[in-house]
């Protein structure tokens, strides 16, 4: 018995020793690669993983003056407070609604827009359109909110009357709860759609023009060309972006929403980010904010892992 075990042990040891040597060989072969990795690795360790230790504040009553070692450990107290808050479900629901709108309505639009721009024939017009479309990205949310007030205000809104005619009743876009998700998503579309096309347009430059020629000869129409040549060229980018989007699924952007909140739409407008701002940020309750952030991160982690897994199962390259 013991002899057999010894033999197994030796084989295992041999394999392990072989394993170690294998590593050494691979390292020697690719040492330049690892050297090239060094700056990035150091960056992530020092500036990302180092501060990550600060997540412990979610389990403490963090006192900035005393630091982590001086602060009291309170375990799950903040999480309990968060989950037991009567507003929790409302906030979760509101966040999910906005996130849903964002993924379903907003996400495909830069892609479609990029494809449309790609189809433009006149080079100069194409460049002009591209240059103009990304301008809204540089406008701050404060200005966007101001524009919406000018357009939709119940008092003098430029579009208020027109909308009233359309709906047959007085329409108050800025106050009615039902308009809120549309309003927010609309703002995001206007501000970010053009900017979002840049990545896809860059990817589309890698498409071989000869493929289009060949397809045309084979009798493919525009639609078929787009579906079979153009779209696959950006498929990898789309999937990567979708998975990454899952990582910020519960982030709705605080500033944008806060500016549009008022007494009438508060019940659908309060989301995680505004809640954190009002309960944690404004009065510096770091621990509470940290706990909520941790909760959001865990949820998003699950989503990312899930979508990544699905992507890989479908034969695509995931993000890890």
């Amino acid at each position, binding site marked *: 018995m013991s002899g057999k075990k010894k033999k197994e042990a030796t084989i295992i040891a041999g394999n392990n020793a072989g394993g170690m040597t294998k590593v050494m060989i691979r390292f020697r072969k690719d040492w330049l690669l690892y050297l090239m990795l060094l700056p990035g690795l*150091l960056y992530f360790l020092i500036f990302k993983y180092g501060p990550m230790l600060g997540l412990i504040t979610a389990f403490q009553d963090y006192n900035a003056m005393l630091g982590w070692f001086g602060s009291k450990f309170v375990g799950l107290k903040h999480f309990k407070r968060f989950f037991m808050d009567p507003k929790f479900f409302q906030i979760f629901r509101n966040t999910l609604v906005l996130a849903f709108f964002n993924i379903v309505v907003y996400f495909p639009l830069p892609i479609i827009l990029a494809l449309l721009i790609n189809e433009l024939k006149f080079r100069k017009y194409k460049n002009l359109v591209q240059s103009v479309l990304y301008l809204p990205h540089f406008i701050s949310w404060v200005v966007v909110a101001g524009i919406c007030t000018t357009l939709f205000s119940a008092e003098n809104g430029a579009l208020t009357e027109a909308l009233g005619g359309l709906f047959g009743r007085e329409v108050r876009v800025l106050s009615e709860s039902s308009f809120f998700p549309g309003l927010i998503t609309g703002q995001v579309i206007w501000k970010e759609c053009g900017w979002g096309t840049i990545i896809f347009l860059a990817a589309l430059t890698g498409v071989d023009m000869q493929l289009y020629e060949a397809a045309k000869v084979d009798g493919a129409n525009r639609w078929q060309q787009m579906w079979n040549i153009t779209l696959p060229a950006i498929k990898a980018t789309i999937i990567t972006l979708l998975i990454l989007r899952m990582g910020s699924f519960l982030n709705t952007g605080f500033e944008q929403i806060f500016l549009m909140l008022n007494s009438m739409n508060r019940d659908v407008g309060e989301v995680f980010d505004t809640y954190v701002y009002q309960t944690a940020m404004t009065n510096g309750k770091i621990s509470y904010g940290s706990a909520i952030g941790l909760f959001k991160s865990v949820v998003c982690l699950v989503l990312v892992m899930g979508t990544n897994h699905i992507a890989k199962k479908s034969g695509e390259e995931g993000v890890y």
Partner: protein
Amino acid sequence: MKKRRLTALVLAGTVLLTACGGGGTVPATEAAGESTTAGSGETPANQQAVEEVFTISMMSELFSDQAPDLNNAWYQEMEKMTGVKMEVNFVPTLSYVDKITAFIASQSLPMVFAANSNVLKNNNLLMALDSDGFWALDDYLQDYPDLYEFVGEQVWENSKIHGKIYGIPRLRILPRNGAIIRQDWLDNLGLEAPETFDELYEVAKAFTENDPDGNGQKDTTGIVTAYQTTGNRGWNGIQTLATAYGAPNTWAYENGTMIPDFSTEEYLTALKYIKKLYDDGYLNKDFAEINAQNRYEYFDKGTYGIVFGVIDDVIGRNQNLPQVVADARLAILPAIHEDGQDPLCNATSGYNGIIMFTKFGNNAIKTEEELRKVLAYYDKLATPQMQDMTTFGIEGVHYEVKDGVREMIINQTANKEQREVDLGDIEQILMKAPYVRRDNDDEVRVALYDAIEARAGYCVSEAHLGLQSETYDDLSSDLDAIMMDASVKFILGTIDEDGYWKEYDNWKKRGGDDVIKEFTAQYEEYKK
């Protein structure tokens, strides 16, 4: 071969760049004059070999659009007069609280810093305060009578945190809430400035229906206000009118308990009054959708007659409105009162923020002796001579005396001079009176100061100043939102009176009951 070496060098360089953080400033910059890094004020005296100059490191908010020059004539003169060198770190307002938090965490708060209302609500600051991070001044103030008198006992009391005085309050005028009215419209329509609720209603009506700007079009509305943010209830009109009806100013202590204003009949009366204005079309329809800045933009356009706000904003409106309507004239709306009653005005706390003294960290005031030196400095600032210096500046540089009248010579439109003589930002961390009459004040300012003084006798103060409620600290945004939303919805007509009181019950359940209990207990402990 050469290329190889070059690329290897680049690679090594990159590694070096990212690996070694090594301090030191980037060569391209040159600090103007002295570098004003926070906490570089290595404390004590003996900075100069000859004279003993005591350096105080300070931190305060930056409100201007210029880099402050700490070596200009004024600072040098101040140092000569007081023997104290100020090393100030000016931080842009918008992220002031975050910077304070970062400094608390890294133990690098300067000796003296300005704590505005946001900072004072900040949990990190409060926890540091409870952990003995700041000097409590209660025992020292009797030795500095000038300082004590300058602030006044009432405001010292108001500014207490957790029962103690932790800083010097920055004085503000008391009766700030009010409204501004178009005097030219009143003149055009032959009306007197309204003083009662009924008169106010009539004026709002006339402003809307009787074409006060005389352009033949029905494009004017009586009143404009903004209820989008909960934080503005002080100056969006509700509080002003409610107090005028007799409601408490936020909180009052009656019959053994603290009561919030929105729980009183008088407050609801005010809401009904506003509702009538709204229903009849004399109030802007989108008041619930626009924010504070919007409502001033509307007013500055010239189509509204009355705007609620703080009365010192008349100066700003007076700058803007005449640009659009050349002969517009503004006046401060008289303090509204019920028929036959005295006016009632909201008193603010009398201060905005306090100047605090750090006890912990690398740049703290370490000993009692040092603290006394700093307090002596502020005591000196409270004297008339220093007040003159901090308010008016240096003769010949900031002002000139012509025929016995002081005229400010700061050129408002030139940047360079601005940089040399600017006093605006430093006053946030020095002692300053709430307002100072100057010889060359224009009509509007004189009227403003007169109004302030006239109202001093009618002020109703907030009973909860200086008191703390933990429940309120935790849930303030929720609780405030519940009653704010209830008020707005009532005015809009979405809920009726019963609905309003139901919301009040909600408020109580959500935590309001606890807040009342806590404030009451605190009041009875500290103020009775």
